[in-house]
């Protein structure tokens, strides 16, 4: 295989950065969750009261 160094670097950076970012998001979310009453986390119950759970993920 040619360009192994480039490929390892490129894919490694992508996986590393995205993985780190994802972990940080989850950690931030957990830290914040403890400070906020559960009513604000409507995603905990499958059907949200305003039915906006799906809409909230509109980016997805």
């Amino acid at each position, binding site marked *: 295989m*040619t360009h192994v160094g480039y490929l390892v670097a490129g894919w490694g950076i992508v996986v590393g950065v995205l993985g780190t970012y994802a972990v940080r998001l989850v950690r931030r979310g957990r830290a914040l969750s403890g400070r906020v009453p559960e009513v604000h986390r409507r995603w*905990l119950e499958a059907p949200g009261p305003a039915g906006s759970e799906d809409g909230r993920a509109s980016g997805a």
Partner: protein
Amino acid sequence: MGTTTGTAAGTRDTTGSPRSRLLGVVTLLAVAVLGVLAFVLTDPDVRIHPTTGEEFGQFDAVRMLYVHVPLAVMTYLAYGICAVASVGVLVKRTPWWDVTAHAAAEVGTVFCGLVLVTGSIWGRPVWNTWWEWGDVRLMTTLVLFLMFTGYLALRRTTDDPRRQARRAAVVALVAVLDIPLVNRSVEWWENRTLHQRSTIGELKIEDLTLFTLFFGFVTAGLVLAWLLLHRFRVGWLEQAALDHGVAAAIAERHAETDDAEVLRSVGERAAGEGTSGDGEPGS
């Protein structure tokens, strides 16, 4: 991404939900499959020159494109979501749109940075340069990246939340509207240099290559969806935490002021001085 999948429903202090955990699992599987497709199943880009019989092409460097190109497309998608949500901020003025715009901008900028890095790493062996000034997409992406770096810097300033939402929305909209201009200007500019280079269109397209690229889009889309969802929820919680803080601050202000004490300290006039009943404090 793996961290959510491990979390059972035991703890409720999380931005995960059953559906987002499923999404996380699917995303991780897709990344693994993409890795296999990109590194094991597909062939390197090797072409034979019709007259000289020489081998040429991108060789194994082409494997970088399976992550680079999908990320680039998803970057534009994320910024598109940010622009739409920014319109929502200016029209509807609700926190929902603001949190969505912020989430899309942040995730988009992470993607955009990766696009620039992977593009540069790919360009080194293929174009024989880390940076190609004449390439439209490269330059446009860089300017976009810089604009949204400014956007995120603006987001980090302490400001009235509602004003910050509108300022940020304006920045996002100007950035997105400016992009066609950047694109066009770099395109004309590039014509001057007439740089010869490889593009996706010249790849030796095989079915599996195409499928891998397509699968890359799906995977990057899943990653984007997972990140956006969780970034949105983090933003939503931040908002809620601050609102919660405001409610607490109001209660605190009420508790800390001893009315009688204040009245004594400001002087004897006032109490009962004809506020005609309308001055009754709220509960």
